[in-house]
Structures are given as C-alpha cells and as structure tokens.
C-alpha cells in the first residue's frame, strides 16, 4: 500500500519539478537570448550582473521560503490565524525589502560595476540591462513569496501555470524587444514576466478552499522567525553571489576575459541545482504539516520519497549533460569552435557533482523544515562557497582553467561526504540523515488505505485493538474506532466511484488519544455538526460530532484533515 504522504508527494512532485525547471529556465532565459541575438560580449555583460541578480534572489528567497514554511507549520498545528499572520508578515516584509533594494540598485550601480576591470564594450551591455532590471527588486520577492505561499496552500497547479506564463512572457517579450532596443529588452521581459506571475497567482485568493488570508500584522519577532528559518536556503543565493563575484574576478585575472562565456555556461550548469528543488518543494508543505503534528513517521515517509526522486532527477540530468554537453553550450549561442570545445569540457566536469548538488539542495531545505537553520546554513555555505572556493583556487592554480571546472564539479561531492561523516559521528546511524528522534513512534500508529469498506473496517478494528491494548477506556476506544469507520465511509460515499487515498494516524503520546484522518477526496468539513443529514451514517456522524467537543477540520495543501482528541480517562469525553 502506497503511503498517503507518498501519494500526495507524487501528486505535488510533477508540478513542483516542472515549476523548478521553469524557474531555472527563467534565470537562464536572458543569457540564452542575449547570447544568441547579441553575441558573446552581451553574455559577458550579463555575467557581470550575476551577483546582483543573485542578491535579489537571496532577499526574495529569505522571505518567500520562510513564510511558506511557517505557514505550513502553523497549519499543521491547526492555528489558521497564526498561519495567516505569518503570511501577512511575509508580504509586508517583501514589499519593504523590495523598495529598499530598488533604491540600492538605483544609487549603487556605478560603484558596483566599477569594481570589475570590464571594458566599455561589456559595460555597454551591462548598464542598460541594470537600469531596466531595477523594478525586479520589488517584483521578484513578491512573486517568489506568493508562489511559495500559494503552493503551500495547495495551489500547485496555479503556481505551475503562473511560472509557465512568466517564462512565456519573459522569453516572448525579450525576443521581440531585444531585436528592437537591444539588451534592455531582455530586462523588460523579466520585469513583465514577474508582473504576470503575480497577477496569475493572485487568482488563488478567489479559489474555494483558499486558506491564505491577508491581515494587518507586523511583528519583528515573526520577521526574525521567517528569516531564521529560510536563511539557510536563501544563503545559497548569497553564497552564489559571493562565489560568482570571486570566480569572475579570478577567471578574468588568470585566464582572460575571453573565458567569461565558458564561465557563463558553467554558472548555468551550477544553477541547475535550482531545477532540483522540485522534490524539496513538493515535500515542504507535507513535512511542515507532519512536523506541526509531531508525526515523525510521516516526516520520514515523505523524505524517503523525496530522496529517491532527487537521486533519480540528479542521475538523469547529470547523465544527459555528460552525454550531450552541447545542450547547454548551444543554448547560449557559443559558435566559436575553441570556446565550444572548452565549454563542453567544462559542462562535463561540472555535471559530475550534480547528483550531490541535488542532495545538498534537498537536505538544506529539510533541515530548515525541522528547524535546524544553523545546520542548513552550514551545509549551504560549505557547498556553495567554502568548498568550491577552496577547490577552484587550488585546482585553478595547479591545473589551469580545466582545474577550475573540475573543482566546481567535485565541490558538492566533497561537501556531501564531509557533512555526512560529521553528522554520522554526531548523531549516529539511527538518526542519520534525518536527525529526528523516534521516541514518539512507539505510541504513534499510521495506517494508509484506499477507501473501500473492507479497508476502512480493517483500520477501524485495528484502532480499537491498539486502544484496548493501551488500556484506554472502552468508551474512547469505541468512539475513536467509530470515527474512523463513519468519517471515512462518509468520505467514500461522498466521492462515489473515485479512488480516494486516506491516512489514519493514532497518537497516544502526551497522555491523550489524538486521531487524525486525512483524505484526498472532495474538500468538505465533516466536523460540522450542522451539516445536512442525508443518511443514517451522516446522522450518526453529526450526532457523534455534537458529542465530541475536541474536533478540528482544516483543508491542508488541498486535502481534508480532521483531528479528534479524546481523553484516556473513562467518561472524560462527555
């Protein structure tokens, strides 16, 4: 039987992976268009701006990821008001940061570009792009925050479409305008794409089942919580910004400005780790909710599926690039045979580390989910700055330009091995690599089922058996068992012949009995005691709900989730 968490993970994975790939392509689109339409000098000009663009992404990610994780955790705790407060906090903060960054871009342009010894031909491309890119400082954080929040609220499909429209708008406008007004057209396309994405994702607020509500809320403590949680993830952008800045300088100084187009391709391949965010993004809302419930079995189940998906994606992409490196080099319009050969070698070297880079990406996100931001941050800094910096400095000096590419490929492998050994030594093999305690699992029981009468009664009977053996009162045992059968049968009846996956979690920790029922059927509130009575079953469900004061329903990532709490004492449920 496939676990409910895995079923939900798979249903989110496709959209999450496509969205991640589109997100990567968006970051890469301007380089492709500039390289093909305007030539290699334009590509070099765009490369000078890479650290700035990474910094904007860093700020966007700092707020977007943390907001979505906090939203999921509060939703997992059934505190929808706090969840919406965290979302509102994220929105206000993104707008404030955006305006500040925009001012910094307006006034800091010449100082930044002056740091490089780039010629006027390269600057002729960098400056117009910079000027038109400025509005992205506000739009990108807003777009990323909305995408993360809408995704966590079950709007995965809408996110996918918004990404697709964003890419289409970005590429279409950039292509059209680039021919007319040069590289500024690429930047205008990027700005328009972000605007379109925001417009489309705003449709989520009109959707039935939307739990994202905007409130007037701003608390410094909440902002710090958001930043603390997402710093590990966002710091990847900051590390890239610093690494690419140093790498640009190192490559120009040691191998000449003609190496920049190859470096641009290498940076695109390194950026592919962004495209591996699919499994982490799909796992995030599920792990967040399981974490809120303190259901470590659920966390482990989802993460097992996410790791498997990450490895498959990593191997497939790395294999493809090793076999056909031209896929990347041709994309940016490199025609010169010498540069092309050098770029193909570079792509092959860098691809070696892609599987490990994908794992770093997943576990960085995971350590954020489980509230270990220091570890996530260390992993990010090691993988995206310290190890590649140390390796390319050494290998570049020893083996020339190919040594640099080789170092960048080996960096994620070295990081994974190093961090893996450290964590094994610190936490032991039983807790590695998820680092969660299994203490609660002795009193935690998870049943996965496809809704059929036989399966439902099997689980209902098993719940009664567990409670009987745990010496829980007969009344509680019967009520919990009854909830399983009646609620799940009501869900089954409501969904007709459609196959519905469900999960029943029985938690005997904390001196009480908690029953959590979730299903991927039609969204409705079974705990509503005033619901319309259409059968003896719905009558019994309504009667039991009325006599069961400790009940909650919350639509979570687009599925039904009902929680019932019972006392273990006899008669205490009344």
């Amino acid at each position, binding site marked *: 039987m496939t676990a409910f968490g895995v079923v939900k993970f798979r249903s989110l994975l496709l959209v999450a992976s496509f969205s991640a790939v589109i997100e990567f392509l968006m970051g890469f689109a301007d380089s492709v268009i500039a390289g093909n339409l305007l030539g290699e000098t334009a590509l070099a000009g765009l490369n000078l701006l890479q650290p700035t663009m990474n910094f904007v992404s860093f700020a966007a990610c700092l707020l977007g990821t943390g907001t979505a994780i906090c939203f999921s955790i509060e939703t997992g705790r059934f505190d929808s008001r706090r969840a919406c407060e965290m979302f509102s906090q994220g929105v206000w903060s993104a707008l404030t940061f955006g305006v500040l960054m925009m001012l910094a871009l307006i006034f800091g342009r010449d100082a930044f570009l002056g740091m490089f010894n780039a010629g006027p031909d390269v600057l002729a491309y960098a400056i117009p792009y910079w000027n038109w890119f400025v509005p992205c400082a506000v739009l990108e954080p807003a777009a990323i925050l909305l995408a993360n929040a809408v995704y966590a609220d079950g709007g995965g499909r809408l996110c996918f479409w918004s990404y697709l429209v964003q890419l289409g708008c970005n590429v279409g406008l950039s292509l059209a305008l680039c021919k007319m007004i040069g590289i500024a057209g690429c930047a205008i396309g990027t700005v328009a794409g972000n605007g379109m994405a925001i417009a489309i994702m705003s449709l989520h607020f009109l959707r039935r089942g939307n739990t994202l509500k905007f409130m007037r809320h701003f608390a410094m403590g909440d902002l710090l919580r958001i930043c603390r949680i997402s710093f590990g993830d966002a710091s990847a952008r900051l590390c890239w910004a610093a690494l690419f800045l140093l790498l640009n300088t190192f490559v120009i100084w040691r191998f000449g400005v003609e190496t920049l187009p190859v470096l641009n391709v290498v940076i695109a391949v390194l950026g592919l780790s962004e495209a591996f965010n699919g499994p982490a993004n799909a796992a995030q809302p599920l792990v967040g909710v399981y974490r809120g419930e303190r259901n470590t079995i659920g966390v482990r189940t989802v993460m097992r599926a996410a790791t498997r998906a990450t490895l498959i994606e990593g191997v497939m992409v790395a294999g493809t690039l090793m076999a056909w490196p031209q896929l990347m080099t041709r994309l940016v319009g490199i025609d010169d045979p010498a540069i092309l050969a050098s770029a193909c070698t570079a792509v092959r070297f860098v691809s070696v580390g892609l599987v490990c880079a994908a794992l770093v990406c997943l576990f960085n996100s995971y350590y954020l989910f489980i509230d270990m931001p220091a570890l996530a941050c260390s992993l990010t800094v090691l993988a995206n700055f310290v190890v590649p910096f140390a390796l390319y400095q050494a290998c570049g000096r020893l083996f020339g330009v190919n040594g640099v590419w080789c170092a960048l490929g080996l960096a994620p492998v070295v990081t994974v091995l190093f961090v893996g050994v450290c964590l094994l030594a610190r936490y032991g093999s039983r807790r590695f690599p998820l680092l969660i305690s299994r203490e609660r699992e002795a009193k935690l029981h998870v049943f996965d089922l496809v809704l059929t009468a036989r399966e439902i009664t099997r689980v209902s009977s098993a719940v009664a058996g567990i409670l009987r053996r745990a010496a829980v009162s007969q*009344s509680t045992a019967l009520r919990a068992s009854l909830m399983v059968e009646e609620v799940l049968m009501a869900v089954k009846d409501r969904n007709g012949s459609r196959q519905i996956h469900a999960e029943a979690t029985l938690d005997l920790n904390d001196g009480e009995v908690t029953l959590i029922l979730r299903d991927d059927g039609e969204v409705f509130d079974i705990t509503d005691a005033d619901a319309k009575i259409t059968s*003896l079953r719905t009558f019994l469900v309504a009667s039991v709900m009325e006599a069961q004061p400790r009940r909650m329903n919350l639509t979570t990532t687009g599925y039904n989730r009902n929680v019932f709490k019972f006392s273990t004492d006899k008669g205490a449920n009344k």
Partner: protein
Amino acid sequence: MITSKKQDGSTLTVSLDGRLDTLTAPQLETDLEPLLGGIESLVLDFGNIAYISSAGLRVLLSTQKKMIAAGGTLTIANAVPAVREVFDITGFSDILTLA
C-alpha cells in the same frame, strides 16, 4: 457473528459476538431473516458486542420494524456501557428497548 440461539416458546434469544460494522452488519441481517418467522419476542444479547456503527444501527432499526410489523418486539440485552453510549448519543436508546 451469531454465537448461539435459544428459543423459549415464542421468544428467541440470539447471542452475538464481535463488531457490528459495515462489513458484518449485512451478514447479521441475512442470518436473522430466516429466524424471525413465528417469533413474538426477539432478544439480541449484546454482551459480547464491543462496537456498533451506523451499519449495525440500521440492521437493528430494520429488524425492529419487521418485528413490530409482525406484532412482536425486539429487545437489546446486556449492551456494554460503550455501546449504550452510542445508543444514547444517537437517541436510539429512546427507540430501542434496552434491557
């Protein structure tokens, strides 16, 4: 489900065992059907029934309807407190005769 049957004149006592749920309730209804002929008083001994769901309640309701139509009665005997609680919550304790 049915563990024993004891007939004393026109009174039939049927002892039940286990869970009366979505799967077992239809079977009980089928098993009871041939036993109802010529019976004026049907007693269902619930002493060993630890669980009843809406499917079980539906069988009790339909059996009571048949008994009343034939001029007879249905009595639920020895129901454990947890099962009685279900009868109380749903108001079935006012409809059924509990002993």
